[in-house]
């Protein structure tokens, strides 16, 4: 078995456990996935020839798509091609915003994709500006849970909402964020 297979198999096992309700596995899955997507996106953007400043936005948009479409991964299928297809779809969208030809050859494998960490000195990401277009309550909830790392229960306490209502608002907020991303003009 190659290193590539091991990497993707591990991701598949993690997502499978996450789908069964294991939040810690889901965190591990996303934390391992992000650097791989970053490497693929860097290569993809390099090939399209658009500004590398979009890199982290492309990573975040891809992670959002993986999250919102995770029910389209069939657990009996290898996870690598599925992740590759989602990343590719998002890069094609990015290319199209710059009016580039939409056909992108992208390695649909992680082979040679040495995981790449997030750079700390990146400019303010699009995501912050996009959050402005999400309704105020959803924005507050998404921001507290993401940036401040507050739990749903705590948010419910401070905002005087039920936990169920916070859950719904978080999910809608993330969907609205993905939608706002699609509408960005480059």
């Amino acid at each position, binding site marked *: 078995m190659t290193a590539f297979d091991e990497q993707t198999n591990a991701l598949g096992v993690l997502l499978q456990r996450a789908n069964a309700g294991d939040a810690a596995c889901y965190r591990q899955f996303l934390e391992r996935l992000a650097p791989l997507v970053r490497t693929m996106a860097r290569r993809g953007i390099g090939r399209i020839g658009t500004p590398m400043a979009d890199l982290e936005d492309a*990573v975040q948009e891809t992670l959002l798509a993986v999250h919102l479409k995770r029910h389209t991964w069939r657990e009996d299928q290898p996870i690598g091609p599925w992740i590759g297809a989602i990343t590719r779809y998002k890069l094609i969208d990015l290319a199209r915003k710059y009016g580039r030809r939409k056909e992108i050859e992208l390695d649909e494998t992680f082979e040679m994709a040495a995981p790449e960490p997030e750079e700390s000195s990146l400019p303010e990401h699009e995501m912050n500006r996009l959050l402005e277009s999400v309704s105020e309550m959803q924005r507050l909830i998404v921001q507290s849970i993401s940036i401040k790392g507050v739990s749903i229960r705590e948010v419910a306490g401070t905002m005087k909402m039920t936990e169920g209502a916070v859950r719904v608002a978080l999910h809608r907020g993330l969907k609205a964020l993905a939608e706002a991303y699609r509408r960005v003009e480059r």
Partner: protein
Amino acid sequence: MKTSDLINALVEDQAVNEPLFGPTLVVWLAMGLAVSVAIFAAFLGVRADIANAIIDPHVQFKFIFAASLFVPLLALTVYGLWPERELVPMLRWLALPMVVLVSGMAFQLLTSPSDYWVSGMVGRYPSACLRSIPALAIGPLLAILAMLRNGAPAQPVVSGAIAGAGSGGLAAFIYALHCPDDSALFVALWYSLAIGIVSVIGGLLGRYWLKW
């Protein structure tokens, strides 16, 4: 927001997605078909001479052509629900309805005198055909688009257009129960045009509705 921040939010969001083939889909499809049946019952109805017509191979051809179109196209629509699947190479399945159509036309040309060809092609009710097939298709098309929206089609416009053509084929199958124009040349011209219109509508809706 840093990527690690976003991950915090994604982990907390445990909302379970609707399965690709769940009860909601069944309800949507049933509603879509019900709209078609209602339109058919209210405005069209089965042709009066159906008992005799159904043994005529020219009439049978209409059903065979419609089925040869909607069965593979609707299967392709489902195939394209998953992002790692590419639809364009699968479009070779369109050869099936093409072969059926050409065979039907050849049969028509061989079995009818040449002075009937043009009048058969123009038919008696071309505008009814052009209105009815899209009207019968719209319910199923919307239901199928709802299914696609829950999936992750890698090419939303292509998926929408295929769903449109599939729904158009299904609508043509239903319309054939009513349609009094029996020439295969009529089918080749007007059915194809009507199904093409639905396909364009599907592609346009896909462009605005199926992106994710």
